């Protein structure tokens, strides 16, 4: 394994690991706050129990998220020192702001989790809101930094160095709005729907369990709307990419020839050597329509760009298809669930919907990982689009396969332990009969 590939793999693995916990750290606080609000409004103690239990799970996941985030901030330097040396002064601001947001979240999460007995109800709920808001802000700042990598701005690149640096302009990169909203919705959709799926599973086994029923309702209120909005925002994101990173769009659509009235490829296998995509279902004019709102618009194909500037097409295309397929399914299930809730139907009777929710549970996270593959691998060979190549940014230290394997083993071990602990936590969910819940 080459050093560059080892470095890229380590970074990808660290990011892929961290994002799961980060998303939970964004979504769970909202769920906890909603459960707590319901308890305060209705006096129904089951909601209090819910907030407590959700808090316990969140504590572990937040801790792992925090340490994996620390690792990432170091790995930015350990693996990509040349990138940081040049980009640090330009894009360091959002990282600093993210640090403060994270700090605030950690402080108030400590208050929330351990301060139930020590502060007033209002203060406690306010602390919960503080956690939810700062979690969201963290996501905002970090994604701004990534957006800048895709659409760099706020500097001029002269003789291999950045001059006329303007950190504020850098933060206002045009890629930020779509990327930020897409990610934040992903966090709420994924967290909400995985919790919904877990409790839906509980209801399938114990249909009269009031604990699971209430949990499902709260989780769906967070996850389902987000999942429904997500494809719309994703569409906006893709439109932006079509204009700002045409190579990336061509790769994720496995689109090789530049053409007007370009078809949309569903599925299909891109053959880079031959420069064509096989076995795809083609929807005529689909791509031009989606990307440019004009069925006869010209869409640039990969063949129009030098081969050295192509990302790995198959990976990017496959990841994109996975994301869209699962994301659509999530949106569909969410629509049905929301419709049933709107009609005040008792969800515990709709076993097919419950089964669908169980199936949907992991999809948000799979979609998110796939989406990040699309955007990060799709940006290759650039680390800063059009400015710096990934190969130029990597550390000169050799033998990078060693830290890659060590950290991977560490994270796999951690992941197993966390999964085990969470499983135990869920298995101990209380059995609350409907009649008791008053």
């Amino acid at each position: 394994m080459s050093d560059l590939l080892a470095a890229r793999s380590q970074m990808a693995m660290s990011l892929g690991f961290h994002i799961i916990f980060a998303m939970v750290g964004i979504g769970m606080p909202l769920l906890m706050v909603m459960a707590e609000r319901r308890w305060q409004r209705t006096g129904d103690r089951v909601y209090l129990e819910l907030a407590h239990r959700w808090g316990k799970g969140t504590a572990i996941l937040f801790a792992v998220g925090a340490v994996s985030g620390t690792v990432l901030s170091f790995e930015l330097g350990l693996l990509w020192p040349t990138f940081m040396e040049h980009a640090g002064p330009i894009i360091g601001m959002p990282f600093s702001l993210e640090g403060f947001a994270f700090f605030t979240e950690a402080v108030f999460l400590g208050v929330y989790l351990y301060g139930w007995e020590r502060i007033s109800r209002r203060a406690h709920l306010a602390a919960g809101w503080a956690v939810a808001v700062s979690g969201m802000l963290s996501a905002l700042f970090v994604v701004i930094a990534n957006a800048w990598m895709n659409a760099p701005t706020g500097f001029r690149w002269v003789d291999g160095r950045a001059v006329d640096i303007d950190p504020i302009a850098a933060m206002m990169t045009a890629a930020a709005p779509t990327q930020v909203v897409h990610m934040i919705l992903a966090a709420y959709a994924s967290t909400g729907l995985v919790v919904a799926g877990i409790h839906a599973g509980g209801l399938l086994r114990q249909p009269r369990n009031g604990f699971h029923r209430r949990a499902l309702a709260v989780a769906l209120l967070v996850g389902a709307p987000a999942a429904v909005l997500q494809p719309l925002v994703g569409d906006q994101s893709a439109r932006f990419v079509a204009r700002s990173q045409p190579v990336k769009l061509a790769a994720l659509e496995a689109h090789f020839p530049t053409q007007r009235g370009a078809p949309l490829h569903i599925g299909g296998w891109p053959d880079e050597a031959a420069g064509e995509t096989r076995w795809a279902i083609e929807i005529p004019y689909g791509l031009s329509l989606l990307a440019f709102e004009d069925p006869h618009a010209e869409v640039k194909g990969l063949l129009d760009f030098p081969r050295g500037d192509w990302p790995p097409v198959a990976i990017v295309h496959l990841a994109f298809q996975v994301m869209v397929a699962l994301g659509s399914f999530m949106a569909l299930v969410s629509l049905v669930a929301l419709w049933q809730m709107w009609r005040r139907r008792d969800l515990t009777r709709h076993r097919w919907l419950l089964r669908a929710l169980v199936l949907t549970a992991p999809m948000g996270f799979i979609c998110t990982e796939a989406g990040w593959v699309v955007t990060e691998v799709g940006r290759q060979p650039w680390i800063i689009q059009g400015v710096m190549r990934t190969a130029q940014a990597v550390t000169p230290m050799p033998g990078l396969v060693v830290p890659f394997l060590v950290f991977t083993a560490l994270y796999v071990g951690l992941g197993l332990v966390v999964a085990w602990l969470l499983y135990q936590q869920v298995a101990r969910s209380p059995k609350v009969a409907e009649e008791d819940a008053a």
Partner: protein
Amino acid sequence: MAGAILAALTAYVLLGGADFGGGVWDLLAFGPRKRQQRALIAEAIGPIWEANHVWLIIVVVLLFTCFPSVFARLAITLHIPLALMLIGIVLRGSAFSFRSHYGPGHGEETGPGARTSAHWGRVFASASVGTPVLLGICAGAVAAGALRAPGASGSGGFVATFVAPWLTPFGLSVGLLTLVLFAFLAAVYLTVEARDPALREDFRRRALVAAGVVFLVAFGALGLSLREVPPVGRGLTTGPGAVALHVSTGAAALAAIAALWWRRFRLARLAAAAQVTLIVWGWALAQYPYLVPPDLTIRDAAAPRITLVLILWALVAGGLVLFPSLVYLLRVFKREHAGP
């Protein structure tokens, strides 16, 4: 900005360092009150350790934003000890969290739950010992001026560039000093935290022992610096303000020991914190104006002015959010301790 980094580093040492030190005492816990000692440590660290993390992240972020070439240099040459330190931080954080999940108060004092809890406790404690040593090794390497630009000295080789600069007797002595300092801090803090007089006595004894070891190791490190890396040794002993700094550090140390002896624990905590702060600042002063001797000074390595100004504003704004939050957190959880 360099001052801000120093401040953040100091905060990390004073607060996060105590967390690590707590882990040391957890590992070394012995005697009839072993379990209560561990419980006290867990209770003291519990709500705040994750927040303490942030100081380290602030140091890293400020470095790469304001002094990017320094960040790059450190990240390249100190890759190995930094990576090892990271592993320690990950293990420590997760182990603590997992153990709390099983720990006292969750009804699992015996049986498989307790064994697992004990296992994670050992992981937590071991990582708490290893990480401060690595932190100190990195500091020592910076101070020793051993971190040159890779490839600058013509010949290289993996060991010469990526191992030799930090794996030195001087570096190891600084690592050991860091460990003992953290343990000392933790023991002193715990005397204030403890509510049970017997526990308080336990930690008082440990703090006094640690203070003695600190003296020994500090002089050892100083001696090694004079022998191995004369510029550092000279900077520490004859640089600007060095004498004043040594006198005040010594005074703080003596004050801490005296306060411990006469059981004035809050005063001891203040004095110990002052002593450690002065040691950190002494190091910084000894190598001023270099951030990475021998060739990266504060001025040379600084990012463009606009970045520095904006970060300064961000720090101010962040501080306005951060400090009240931290005060609130401490007030919520330390309210009960109204001891002498």
